[in-house]
C-alpha cells in the first residue's frame, strides 16, 4: 500500500509539472503582449518596455518558467527601488490590472468557491444518490417515474435559466437574499445566517444539474448491481432485502459513484463560472471570467488554470486511494 502511494504521488508531481509547463507554454505563444496590457490606452513604448523588464517578461520562456516555479516556493519580487512589488510564496504572479499579487486574489476568492462547492456537493450527493437508490428500489413505480421527471428537468434546464429565475422570482422577491451582501464574502464564522442566505440559492442551483445526473447514474448502477450473481447469493443465504441493499448492493455501487463524485467536486473547485456570475459571488469562477473577458489579465488566468488542473489531478489521486480502500482487488494489485 505504501509503495502504491509513493508511486501514485510521484506520478501526480510529474503530471502537475507537465500541466503547468504546457499552460505556461500556451500563454507564451499567445498573440498578446502581456507587457502592453499593463498600461492603458495612452501608452508610451518606454513604459511598456519598463514594465516588461519589471515583470520579467524580457527573458526567454524557459527562464520565465523557472522563475515562476521558484516563485511558487520562495516568493517573488518585481522591480527594484521604490516601485518594488513583493509577492510572498506561493507566488503565482502579479496582476497589473488589479494591483495585487495573484495569490492574494486567489486567497480572497477561494473561500467563496469552497463554500459554494462543498455546500452544493453535500446537497447533490444526498439528493442525487438518495433519489437514485429510491428509483432503483421502486423501479417502474411512481417514485421511479418522479425521479425520471426530475432527471429530465434537471439535466435539460441550463443553470443560467434556473439561476436567474430563482434569483429574481424567489431570492429577491421574497427578500431571502440580501442584495447588499451580494458580491461580498461573508465568512460563516462571522455571520452564519448571512453566509447561509448568500449561499443557499447558489447551492440549490448548482446542485440541481448535478443531482439530476447523479440520480440517473445511481439508479442505473444500483439496478445493474442488483442483478449481479453475488446479490442472488446474498438472497439465497436468507438475508433480508434491507440487509442486501445496505451491505451488498450499495457497497458495490458506491465505488463508481465515489469516482465520479471526486472528479466532479474537483472541477467545481476550479470555480463555477455561471453560478458565481449570476449570484455575484466573488469566487474563483468570477476571478477567472473577469480576467478573461474584462482585464486580459494573463497572470491571473495562468494561475486559475493551473490551480483548476491541480485540483483535478489531486482529486484523481484521492479517488484512486479511496478506490484502493474500497476495492480489495485494486489494493492487492
Amino acid at each position, binding site marked *: 500500500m505504501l509503495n502504491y502511494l509513493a508511486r501514485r504521488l510521484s506520478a501526480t508531481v510529474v503530471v502537475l509539472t507537465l500541466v503547468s509547463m504546457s499552460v505556461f507554454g500556451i500563454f507564451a505563444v499567445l498573440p498578446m503582449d502581456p507587457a502592453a496590457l499593463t498600461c492603458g490606452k495612452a501608452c508610451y513604448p518606454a513604459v511598456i518596455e519598463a514594465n516588461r523588464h519589471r515583470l520579467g517578461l524580457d527573458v526567454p520562456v524557459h527562464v520565465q518558467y523557472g522563475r515562476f516555479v521558484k516563485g511558487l516556493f520562495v516568493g517573488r519580487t518585481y522591480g527594484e527601488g521604490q516601485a518594488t512589488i513583493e509577492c510572498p510564496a506561493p507566488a503565482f504572479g502579479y496582476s497589473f490590472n488589479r494591483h495585487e499579487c495573484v495569490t492574494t486574489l486567489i486567497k480572497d476568492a477561494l473561500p467563496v468557491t469552497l463554500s459554494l462547492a462543498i455546500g452544493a456537493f453535500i446537497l447533490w450527493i444526498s439528493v442525487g444518490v438518495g433519489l437514485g437508490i429510491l428509483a432503483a428500489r421502486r423501479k417502474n413505480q411512481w417514485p421511479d417515474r418522479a425521479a425520471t421527471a426530475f432527471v429530465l428537468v434537471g439535466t435539460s434546464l441550463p443553470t443560467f435559466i434556473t439561476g436567474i429565475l430563482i434569483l429574481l422570482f424567489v431570492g429577491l422577491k421574497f427578500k431571502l437574499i440580501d442584495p447588499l451582501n451580494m458580491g461580498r464574502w461573508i465568512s460563516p464564522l462571522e455571520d452564519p445566517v448571512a453566509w447561509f442566505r448568500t449561499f443557499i440559492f447558489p447551492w440549490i442551483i448548482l446542485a440541481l444539474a448535478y443531482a439530476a445526473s447523479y440520480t440517473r447514474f445511481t439508479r442505473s448502477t444500483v439496478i445493474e448491481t442488483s442483478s449481479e*450473481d*453475488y446479490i*442472488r*447469493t446474498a438472497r439465497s*443465504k436468507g438475508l433480508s432485502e434491507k440487509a442486501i441493499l445496505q451491505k451488498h448492493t450499495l*457497497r*458495490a455501487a458506491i465505488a463508481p459513484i465515489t469516482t465520479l463524485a471526486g472528479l466532479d467536486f474537483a472541477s467545481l473547485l476550479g470555480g463555477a463560472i455561471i453560478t458565481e456570475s449570476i449570484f455575484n459571488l466573488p469566487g474563483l469562477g468570477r476571478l477567472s471570467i473577469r480576467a478573461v473577458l474584462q482585464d486580459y489579465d494573463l497572470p491571473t488566468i495562468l494561475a486559475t488554470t493551473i490551480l483548476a488542473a491541480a485540483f483535478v489531478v489531486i482529486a484523481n489521486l484521492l479517488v484512486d486511494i479511496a478506490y484502493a480502500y474500497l476495492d*480489495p482487488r485494486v489494493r492487492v494489485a
Partner: protein
Amino acid sequence: MTSTNMSKPFLEVKNLNVAFPTEDGLVRASSDISFSVARGETLAVVGESGSGKSVTSLAVMGLHNRKTAQISGQAILNLESGPVDVISADEEIVRKLRGKAMSMIFQDPMSALHPYYSIGNQLIEAWSLYNEGSKEDGRKRAIEMLDLVGIPAAEKRVDEYPHQFSGGMRQRVMIAMALINNPSLLIADEPTTALDVTVQSQILQLIRDMQKEFNMALILITHDLGVVAEVADRVNVMYAGKIVESGSAEDIYYRPDHPYAIGLLNSIPRVDQLESKRLVAIPGQPPSLIHRPDGCSFRARCEFADRVPGNLCATTIPTLDQKSTDHFSRCHLPESELVKARVEIGGRK
C-alpha cells in the same frame, strides 16, 4: 408418494408452474412440475438450456420476485416443526428458511461471491443469521467449514478475498457457506459447469461427501449426463419447461422411454459400449416458451412422431404416465414402437 410410517420426503413439489409475463407474451418457463426428494437422496435434473431446470429450483428457494413471476402449485418442505409451502407462505417465513432449511450453490463461483468482502466476512454473515454468538464464534465456525470443504490453511485464507481464490476453491467456499447452517436440502445449480475438467470431479465428490456428512436431500441440476450417472438416485429429464421423463438413474440410462431422453443419451460418449460410435446430435431447437405448439413440445424434433397413430402428437399434450414402478414418461409412443426405437437409435453408427 405413498406416506407410510416412514417419514415423508423432505421436499415435495406438486404441480408447480412458473411463468413470466413479458411484452411478447407469457413465458411459461416451467409447468406442471411434480417431484420429491428425501434426505440422503440425490435427484438429478437434466435438460438443455432453457428447459426450466433453474427456474424450478429458484422457485423452490423462493428466489423469484413474486411481483414479476406468476407461480402456482406447491413446494412443501417437511420441517420438524411441520410442513411449509414455500410458494404460498409469507415471504418473510420463506426468507428464514433460506440458508437454514435449504441452501443453494450456483454455476459460476467467480461471480457468486461478493468481490468486496473477505471470505470470512461472508461466511460469518451467513452463520450469524441463524446463530447467537460472538463474531469470534462465527469465525471459528467459518474456519471449521472451510477446513471441512478442503481448503488448505483455512485459518489464514479466511481473511482473504474471493479474487485470491481459484475457481474450484471458490466453489468450495460457496459450498462451505451454503452448508454452514446445516441445511436439510441443498440445490446445486450446475455446480461444476464453470470449472476445469480436473476440478469438476473433485467438487462433485465433495458435494457427495457433504451430502452424506449432513444427510441432506440433494437436487443436482446439470446438463452433464456423465455427472448424473455418477451420483444420482433419481433423474428428472426436462424439456421445454416440463418433466418428460422421470425415473431411477438405472431406468433412465438403460431403459430410457422418452425419445428426447434417448436422444440425449446418444449425444454423449459412453464407456460401457465397446464399439466406438458416432455421437448423434438431436436436430432442431427447443420450441418457444411463449407460443407453444399444440400437442407434444418435442414433436418437431421427434423422429417417431409419425409412428403414433391418429396424429396424437400434434393435437394432444401427452401426460406423464407411469411405465413401471417409479418410472414415468410423457410420450404417446406405444410400448412396442418404443422398443424398436431404442434399438434403432442405439444401433446407429
